[in-house]
């Protein structure tokens, strides 16, 4: 058990290496088995996790470059635990739903590599190790988008890579400076996140560092106006690429905010609440509008992802347990829901080789199961209560309401606009008369597709109704983090805001 995190990270990698020995025919079964074992491992992690303990667990640490304070340092807390499980789960699901035939071996091996990097990002407690996985995750994704994508795939892949890479390099400078500050303060080199979280950084430096980290994370999230790579990436990527991109890779950015920006630079985070909230609101409204204007189903969902990420950002910067817990939960739910939606679009694309809504209409008639599942996911996406989407969205908004009612209201329009574009998508594709001849003989979902989607449906319902087992550990860790933030914040405004954000106004 002690080395379970290492196992979690490197099992898919090693399995991927062995994958080269397996022939094209059986590689899919192999991939699914590996992903399943990995998922089982992550469940073992969950069962071994003490949800009452808000700190890091399953810690593994040994020095890698002691000269410079870099060590191999892993651990999970409530915040990262479920993101790890999400990664392994979505990989498994995506592999089950995989329908690509061309060069499938390379694809599956890339996916397994990607899984390594995703898990790695979430369990690293050393910033450099984090950064390594963070960057490394781009490579398999580049390959996946570029090799199996649509017409503009190369442009999309390069754009994705360059954009995120550029952002994270700026972040690297921030990381190095933070390490230097730590060294100055303590005389010891360290890149360990828990160490850094204890360091009190002077306010004006916080601002700069926050900005440096912000660029890295904002591009990954992606926040307006750094979001334009995403529609291309999603639009061109194969289904499995979109699923993993939306479900997990985007979460790295928001995870970064929670893991780095908030606890390390509490004052700066608070100082920047307003601009960031404004950006988030723009993300919510603006991309929701763009989503409405789309002609391609996948693009709708791609833009909707950005819109939802806006809510996550809002929740993260609520500075209270409600908002942050909510935003982390929303990361999970968005992962599942958008992943499912992308898979659904993939299913129809496999049948018709087009994603244009104008090509469809009345699909509910010929593909009732498909329409049902799509409908469920749609409702989860617009945040209907008792689906997974509601819990996080509600908590995020309620959390941020304490910070700014007006901005919460504006961000809340997302629930309206979300309904607008999603319903119009649904209407255009599933409702109406079945006019297109090509659609008249479409087959409904087959067993493999159902096998990949039904678990998601069940999760959507289960976690929507009973989110407690997930919320609880998250909440514990978040509360712990907020306490830390309050303790180490230096400006008066920040201290007050954290205090205020976390207290119910006493009824007079």
């Amino acid at each position, binding site marked *: 058990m002690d080395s379970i995190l290492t196992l979690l990270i490197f099992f898919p990698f090693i399995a991927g290496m062995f994958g080269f020995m397996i022939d094209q025919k059986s590689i899919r079964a192999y991939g699914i088995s590996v992903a399943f074992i990995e998922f089982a491992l992550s469940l073992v992690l969950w069962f071994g996790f003490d949800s009452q303990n808000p700190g890091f667990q399953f810690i593994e640490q040994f*020095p890698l470059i002691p000269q410079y304070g870099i060590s191999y340092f892993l651990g999970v807390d409530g915040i990262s635990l479920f993101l790890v499980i999400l990664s392994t789960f979505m990989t498994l699901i995506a592999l089950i739903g995989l329908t690509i035939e061309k*060069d499938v071996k*390379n694809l599956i091996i890339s996916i397994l590599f990607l899984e390594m990097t995703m898990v790695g990002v979430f369990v690293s407690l050393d910033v450099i190790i984090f950064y390594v996985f963070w960057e490394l995750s*781009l490579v398999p994704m580049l*390959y996946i988008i570029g090799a199996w994508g649509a017409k503009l795939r*190369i442009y999309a892949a390069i754009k994705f890579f*360059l954009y995120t*890479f550029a952002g994270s*390099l700026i972040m*690297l400078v921030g990381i190095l400076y933070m390490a230097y500050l730590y060294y100055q303060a303590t005389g010891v080199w360290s890149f360990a996140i828990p160490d850094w979280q204890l360091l009190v950084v002077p306010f004006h430096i916080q601002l700069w560092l926050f900005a440096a980290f912000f660029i890295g994370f904002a591009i990954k999230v992606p926040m307006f106006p750094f979001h334009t790579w995403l529609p291309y990436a999603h639009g061109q990527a194969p289904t499995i690429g979109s699923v993993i991109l939306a479900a997990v890779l985007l979460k790295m950015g928001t995870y970064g905010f929670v893991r780095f920006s908030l606890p390390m630079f509490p004052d700066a985070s608070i100082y920047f609440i307003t601009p960031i909230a404004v950006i988030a609101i723009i993300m919510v409204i603006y991309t929701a509008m763009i989503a409405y204007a789309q002609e391609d189903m996948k693009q709708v969902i791609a833009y909707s992802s950005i819109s939802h990420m806006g809510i996550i950002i809002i929740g993260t910067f609520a500075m209270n347990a409600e908002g942050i817990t909510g935003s982390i939960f929303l990361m999970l739910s968005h992962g599942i829901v958008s992943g499912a939606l992308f898979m659904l679009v993939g299913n129809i694309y496999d049948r018709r080789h087009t994603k244009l809504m104008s090509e469809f209409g009345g699909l509910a008639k010929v593909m009732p199961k498909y329409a049902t599942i799509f409908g469920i996911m749609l409702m989860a996406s617009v945040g209907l209560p008792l689906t997974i989407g509601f819990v996080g969205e509600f908590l995020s908004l309620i959390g941020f309401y304490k910070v700014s009612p007006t901005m919460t209201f504006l961000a809340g329009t997302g629930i309206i606009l979300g309904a607008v574009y999603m319903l119009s998508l649904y209407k255009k594709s599933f409702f109406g008369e079945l006019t297109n001849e090509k659609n008249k003989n479409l087959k409904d979902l087959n067993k493999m597709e159902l096998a990949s989607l039904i678990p998601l449906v069940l999760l959507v319902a289960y976690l929507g109704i009973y989110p407690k087992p997930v919320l609880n550990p998250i909440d514990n860790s978040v509360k712990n983090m907020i306490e830390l933030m309050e303790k180490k914040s230096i400006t008066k405004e920040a201290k007050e805001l954290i205090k205020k954000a976390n207290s119910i106004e006493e009824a007079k």
Partner: protein
Amino acid sequence: MLEPISVSIASLNLATLAPMLILISGGLIILCIDLIAKNLSKQLYVVLSILFLLLDLGAVLGYQGAVRGFFDVMLVDGISILSQAIILFASMLFIPLALTSKRFHEYTFPEYFALFLFMISGFQFMVSSDNLILIFIGLELGSLALYTLIAMHNRDRSFEAAIKYFTMGAMAAGFFVMGALILYALTGTVEIAKMIPVLEARNYDPIVAVLAAVSFLIAALGFKLSQVPFHTWTPDVYEGSSAALAGYMSVVPKIAGFVVAIRIFEFLIHANIVWVQYVLYTIVVITMTLSNIMALVQQDVKRMLAYSSISHAGFVMAAIVIGTTQANSALFLYWVLFLFTNLGAFAMLWVSRHKSKIWHDRFDHPYTKFSGMISIMPFGAVVMGLFMMSLAGVPPFSLFWGKLYLMGAAVNAGFIWLAIIMAINSAISIYYYLKLVVYMFLHDPIENEGTIYVKNASTALKTIIGFSTVVTIFAFLLINPLLEIITAYVKASGF
């Protein structure tokens, strides 16, 4: 009247000369063998060269004791040992690249190997002295041999490359000696260490002359280190010479140049002559950026790598601007890592080299050549991709650690903006590395014959590439021991 000369052998510290002597005698032995028996196989010479290099390396690494030797002309301090080790390592990796499966003109000359050994000894002299005379001679020895080696590839383009390199080298030599002259006029000595007290005593007055001397030296060394605007030879020369030699050139002469640059500029920077820092800062920034954006538009991989190596040189030059111990350590760390990756990348090109140009009427290695390599030759594509990623600084491959440490050094010394510019440049640079990756992985193959990429391969070449690959991947294990050694040496030599 003159005293009779009486010097004790012990005081000469002959050991300081031993490494170079080994190589010079090695070169002579090769020449002699050729005189005795003609038409011996190149394998013999390759192996002999490796043996001499090994001996040399042993001598270098085994060196202990007094730092100076031979009337204080020789200076074997930490950075000298480090750089010699890098030079020798690179040479040992390079020379087996002669063992191609195809026949190339230059390797039919035993003199090629002799010249090669002489050249290395030249670079070794260059780094193990602080006497401008010896530095100059070492530099010229190395350069003259190098010009010849380039020309021996025996193609029109290699002649053109050699002539260009030579001509500019001659001008740079003029600059170097002019700089030396001014320094000599100012201080009355040609030894860097002895200049310092004189200059300090004069309070660096007349500053114009000091700065002018530095300008000449920057121009001369900038030529060697291919800093903008003295870099113009680099792409042409790399293009004209064989891929193997180009890879070698991107590593070895530059590390020698860096050592000289450290010796010359560092004391000025430490003496708070901010002008030097500013000027170098500017040059570094321009070099990184300009070469990066020019690399973007290249059509040929080798030429792209040439620009990339200019950019890397600019990157490393930043270490000299920063001037802290950490920065200087980072310089060597970076260069060690760069050595393996870059040589690996050039070796990959070398492996895929055809005798005639079948892809493009000018280039041997246009991007299109690598289209769809992943489906034809997956392993090769992965390895090449790995080198590209490493050069771009994608973690955890080798150069990332170099960049990390160097940028860390910049940040720690307060050069935040420099670090940011370095970061942005890394971001720009990823594009052209990625371009090759994109061609290899994402484009459809033009031909289906896998062997086209390994036309020139042999076990030796594959071994070298394999070795580079392993080092590139597992660099993170190497960093700490390397850093310990490098920092110790750099500290010991007072930089």
